[in-house]
């Protein structure tokens, strides 16, 4: 099989990038190793989605000259999503890979919370970064993760020490202007800590073909609790490749809330590894397929510890000629005794030309577990519409209520009001076109 690469992505470029950022030697090593893997591997194959013709690397790589400093003027389209009038916020905004705005209240800093760009963390806390970087997601998993590890650019680092509970959400926003966006998010929640993280990524220009290749790694310590909420909004000419992973220790809990609101092709791969006893995961995602958009959305939980619990809920609405695959994968490893897993994939088909494919997959290697799944794909239930109409609600409004209700599992769990409104606007826009 022939392997296509972008020949501009070479040792010189990677070395230059690493030098500009004054990275430690070991980071350059990872980048160079990853570059080799990227060059050698073919485009990954997904069971039901062919991405041979998708653009994974044909973009001009851009190195930001430096941060734009801590701008007081937050770009207008982001401002509404940030509650600027309270101390109880913590935000990092990046344009491409450059820092635009950074705010961390002193109270958090005093407790030992580190919330900074990953570039900066590499300078100030290299050992911490080294311990966790590309550990949950391996650079040699496939061509996409290899490309990410070689060229990652931008992203944030969050470290929450033992027993620290942060009451308000921490937030990061990425706006893409240049074609290639490769941010890396590293979150470390130490024992018994508690945090909510909100991540919003969007493109600004409707004509540019963006390539987003992002990795999120979350390390959930013993008894810690992390909620990670994300909304992606890239335009219809874009390609979004997102790998998100969590490794959860004893009694820890990860909650993923994902609004996949891209207008372009999307690969979203989410995995939670429940490493030890009584760890748990809750994964909720929504997707609205419009135009000729294609998407492959996978939510996976691996149960290794005993008494671990997981819940996956994926919901999709398919319009136009869009195509989407929804894979829910529950893996019960030997030893995951008394573990309990549930998953459901539901697809509303609102167009005859659209395709939606729900695949609940249970892989069970331990006999003493409970695992259940449910999947459905079909139009809006006529009896439900009749029920609402029987209370005087007109048909259009009844449909609207049902469709919005269908997505509420995710919308209602976005912890920042401004972003919740933004998500609702996106949903309206997608449903109306």
């Amino acid at each position, binding site marked *: 099989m022939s392997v296509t690469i972008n020949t501009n992505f070479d040792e010189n470029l990677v070395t230059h990038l690493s030098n500009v950022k004054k990275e430690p030697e070991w980071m350059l090593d990872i980048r160079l190793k990853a570059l080799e893997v990227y060059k050698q591997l073919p485009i990954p194959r997904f069971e039901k989605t062919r991405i041979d013709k998708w653009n994974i690397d044909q973009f001009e790589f851009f190195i930001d000259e430096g941060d734009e400093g801590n701008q007081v003027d937050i770009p207008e389209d982001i401002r509404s999503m940030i509650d600027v009038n309270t101390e109880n916020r913590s935000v990092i905004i990046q344009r491409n890979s450059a820092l635009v705005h950074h705010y961390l209240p002193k109270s958090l800093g005093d407790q030992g919370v580190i919330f900074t760009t990953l570039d900066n963390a590499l300078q100030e806390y290299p050992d911490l970064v080294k311990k966790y970087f590309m550990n949950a997601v391996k650079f040699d998993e496939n061509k996409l993760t290899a490309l990410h590890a070689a060229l990652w650019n931008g992203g944030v680092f969050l470290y929450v020490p033992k027993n620290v509970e942060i009451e308000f959400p921490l937030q990061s926003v990425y706006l893409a202007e240049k074609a290639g966006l490769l941010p890396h998010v590293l979150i470390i929640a130490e024992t018994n800590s508690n945090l909510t993280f909100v991540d919003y990524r969007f493109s600004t220009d409707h004509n540019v073909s963006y390539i987003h290749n992002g990795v999120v790694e979350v390390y959930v310590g013993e008894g810690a609790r992390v909620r990670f909420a994300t909304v992606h909004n890239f335009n219809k000419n874009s390609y979004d490749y997102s790998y998100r992973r969590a490794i959860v220790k004893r009694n820890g809990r990860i909650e993923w809330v994902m609004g996949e609101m891209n207008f372009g092709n999307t690969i979203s791969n989410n995995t939670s590894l429940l490493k030890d006893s009584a760890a748990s995961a809750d994964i909720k995602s929504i997707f609205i397929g419009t135009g000729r958009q294609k998407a492959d959305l996978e939510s996976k939980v691996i149960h290794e510890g005993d008494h671990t619990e997981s819940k996956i809920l994926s919901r999709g609405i398919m319009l136009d000629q869009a195509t989407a695959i929804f894979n829910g994968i529950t893996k019960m490893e030997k030893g995951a005794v008394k573990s309990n897993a549930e998953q459901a994939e539901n697809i509303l088909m609102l167009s005859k030309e659209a395709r939606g494919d729900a695949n609940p997959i249970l892989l069970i290697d331990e006999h003493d577990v409970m695992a259940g799944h449910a999947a459905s794909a079909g139009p809006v239930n*006529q009896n439900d519409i009749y029920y*609402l109409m029987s*209370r005087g609600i*007109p048909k259009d409004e009844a449909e609207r209520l*049902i469709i919005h209700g269908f997505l*509420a599992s995710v919308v209602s769990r976005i912890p920042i009001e401004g972003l919740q409104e933004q998500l609702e606007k996106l949903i309206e826009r997608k449903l109306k076109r």
Partner: protein
Amino acid sequence: MSQPKLTIEDLQVSVEGKKILKGLSLEIKGGEVHAIMGPNGTGKSTLASTLMGHPKYKVESGSVTLNGENVLEMATDERARKGIFLAMQYPSEISGVTNADFLRSAINARRGEGNEISLIKFVREMEKKMSFLEMKESFAQRYVNEGFSGGEKKRNEILQMMMLKPQIAILDEIDSGLDIDALKVVAKGVNEMKGPEMGVLVITHYQRLLNYIKPDYVHIMMQGRIVRSGGPELAEKLEAEGYDWIKEELGIEDETVSQRS
């Protein structure tokens, strides 16, 4: 508001090509409670669904009017806005839509644009009605019927009736699957609403419900039509003696609609 009047004349209805209602006539006025009783499969629920306009039911002939207006020409939502209410036997579960949002949408649909109910007034009214029906406050924010027990669903139907204040309320087997306490609460709701501004049609298998919601008229349905009408004493006789005596009197062997007429 003048006293409402629902008039059903010689109604014939089929489902998927099969005739279910075979000429049913009935008049319900505000202030009256009518009970339709009858064994399974005699067309009782078909009548309820037809009056509400369920798309599965096809009216072959006959007429239904509400205050002189042709109900059969109206879509389901319009019927509801005109004042017909059906408490369903199997209410839908609507995920992601809270009871409060649902009810407010329904009330506002009836009041029309520019005349929406204020949030505070709505919340107060809903809380009042919920407490009357001994429903927990959390019900307002729970998703419509999702994960509700059978009894909770029926209570929720009655809550909707009390909030929407219909002219004609049809209760389709509201007693099925209810224990006696829940039944009493449901009946309490209906009795609270009783008055010249609302007529009630109760559809049931069992006389039990009629101990709590006293009917003025009792109708027995067999083979897709009303075969006998009387006062409350008719229900008591059915309770004591069952349906066989009527079948004998009328020479009916198979009371269901599958009987060829």
